């Protein structure tokens, strides 16, 4: 690694919009780990997470023009791209097939060899924070944020009224904020 450069967020954004590859390198070095973490928390699959992370950074490069600084921080924008890409992958047929096919042998393998390649995603990032929430709140955040279900879908899955889903998610989010502080 060469000299360490730091940019203000504003500088970084305007350099990225000018397609400055050095700025893009900095962006990757700085944020790839945090984004990789959220992708892993959703997909629970290192290989797939690699592909998604790659896709996410290419999309950031392509779509930087559409990023609006008045609507939030650059990281928030990228975090949402990463989450959406992960959920898309999660919902693709391809993902569901691979999970089915490999579930048994790999788990057996993992048990046998004291497998460490697979991360225990329940103990990183937001998921760790979720553990501090009440069960009824934790489940809803899990479904809404990590599985990407709509409120209507959640109401159906959990067989609770839509209004209750909305209120509980809002309450869960308020608590989440308290735990993040």
């Amino acid at each position, binding site marked *: 690694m060469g000299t360490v450069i730091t940019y203000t967020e504003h500088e970084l954004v305007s350099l990225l919009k000018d397609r400055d590859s050095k700025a893009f390198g900095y962006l990757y070095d700085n944020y790839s780990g945090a984004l990789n973490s959220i992708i892993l928390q959703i997909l629970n699959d290192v290989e797939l997470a690699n592909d998604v992370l790659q896709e996410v950074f290419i999309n950031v490069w392509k779509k930087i023009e559409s990023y609006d600084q008045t609507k939030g921080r650059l*990281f928030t924008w990228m975090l949402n791209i990463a989450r959406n890409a992960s959920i898309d992958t999660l919902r693709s047929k391809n993902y569901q097939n691979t999970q089915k096919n490999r579930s048994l042998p790999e788990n057996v393998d993992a048990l046998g060899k004291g497998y460490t390649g697979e991360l225990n995603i329940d103990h990183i990032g937001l998921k760790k924070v979720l553990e501090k929430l009440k069960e009824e709140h934790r489940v809803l955040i899990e479904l*809404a944020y990590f599985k990407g279900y709509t409120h209507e879908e959640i109401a159906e899955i959990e067989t609770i009224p839509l209004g209750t889903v909305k209120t509980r998610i809002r309450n869960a989010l308020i608590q989440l904020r308290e735990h993040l502080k």
Partner: protein
Amino acid sequence: MNIQEYISSGIVESYVLGLADHEERADFDRMCAAHAEVRKARELFELSLEEQAMLNAVTPSKNIKSKIFAEIEIESEKINDQSFIDDDPLYVADGTRSEGPAKIKAMGWLRYLAAASIALLIISTALNFYLFNQYKSYSSRYATLMAQQTELAKNNDIMRTRLTAYEGTIAMLRDPDMAVIKMPGTNVPTSPDSSSVATVYWNTKSKDVYLLVNNLPQPPSDKQYQLWAIVDGQPVDAGVFDVQSVDGLLRMKNMPRAQIFAVTLEKRGGSVAPEGPMYVLGKVS
């Protein structure tokens, strides 16, 4: 709902985490634009989320960065390629992907095409110019012919009118009731011009009088010839006439009876009784 209640309703977190629906997002954007407190709350949550994510970062595989940069390289070239293709559609039609020669080949084609276009343009311009001149020439000839045609038609009308007049004259002369009274200048010893001759045609049935000027000298413009019928020794006005503009027979005044016809030169408009010199005279036989 006041601002504080709005901020603590969970909307901030919902928005930042991408869980808010379309309507809630639009609403939140408006609130952010209007209230600094809402912006502040959003920023605080964003920062705490970012901090938490950074703390829990999981470094990805080492090769991913180079893969991403390779991909970006291709993307950038695609953008450049795109502009090249847009400028030069022949390159796409060609289908060849090899860089240099295809480009030169395409340029060659373009050059031929441009040269051919210019040549066609010159030929077309010359042809237009030639055809325009031809058109102008034909157009003027056409105008001339049209003028001639109009002239001929006019003449034809005049001829037709004259012919009709002559036909009328001949029809009258053929009439067996028509008496011909020849009036030579020689009949008048005092005639200013003894070579003068005029003829009266008198229809004895209808009593219509026609005059034919055979030869009378051109009078001064303040004078006019007048025809007289002598009835029982008294001259009776039979009308005035001009010698020019005479086309065949002149219709004069109807005359029930007469022994002699004569022509005198009078003041323009005629006289009540003959005053001027007599030119010609003829007796009814």
